[in-house]
């Protein structure tokens, strides 16, 4: 399962797993879209289980960022490994997203 979802208080916790490439990205987009539509005020996306992301996955994330911004929801990311972080950095996404090393830090930032 590429997308797992849990709810913690007022936060949607999303866990991304495996590979988000051109084949899997449309499904991930649909899953996260549904969660956003039904969703809580805050969203945390945990990248711990993610091994690979390409521009198809980055498109999903920029779409999520635009939607949360438009809806006035808080969005934070956590647990990006070095390879994924490099892709984010090159793409300018480290300036767009609030990124934390651990889920604990990310949750603390949402509470602040």
């Amino acid at each position, binding site marked *: 399962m590429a997308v797992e979802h849990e709810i913690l208080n007022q936060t949607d916790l999303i866990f991304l797993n495996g590979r988000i490439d*051109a084949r899997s990205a449309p499904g991930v987009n649909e899953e996260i879209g549904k969660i956003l539509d039904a969703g809580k005020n805050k969203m945390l996306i945990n990248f711990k289980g993610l091994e690979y992301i390409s*521009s*198809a996955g980055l498109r999903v994330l920029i779409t999520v960022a635009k939607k949360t911004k438009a809806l006035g929801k808080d969005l934070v990311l956590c647990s990006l490994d070095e390879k994924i972080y490099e892709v984010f950095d090159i793409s300018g996404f480290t300036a767009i997203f609030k990124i934390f090393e651990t889920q604990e830090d990310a949750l603390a930032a949402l509470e602040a």
Partner: protein
Amino acid sequence: MNKTLVLSATLENLGTLMSHGRDAAVACGMDAKAIHQVELALEEVLVNVINYAYDQSQDQDQSTVLSKIGDIELDCSCTSNTLTITVADQGPAFNPLDQPDPDTTLSVEERTVGGLGIFLTKQMMDTVTYENSRGKNILTLVKHFKE
């Protein structure tokens, strides 16, 4: 080592094509980070061909669509410290490197949703070159690495 794989340019074949590239990077002795960079660079190029090189616009009927879809030729070769990947298609001449790079400094509201693919390829490889030769678009991706 030099291996060529020829498959029709469909999303269903992306996994097989990606494995071919990944296997070459592994056989070359690249480290995990470099392999990831090669995979990403290759996917962006392959997806570009799958989405744009051949006319898929007219008909939703599978057999008719497939008949219009041409091939992707993927060739990987390795010397002591260089991996060279070429991706060729027989679509209309098109140089993806002509696209301007996206502005990665824009805010989330200003950013467009797409446009990162070939930019990432260029960032992940040492050189990326395009040529149109004998009716083919040929993109050559080169990455040097430490043994």
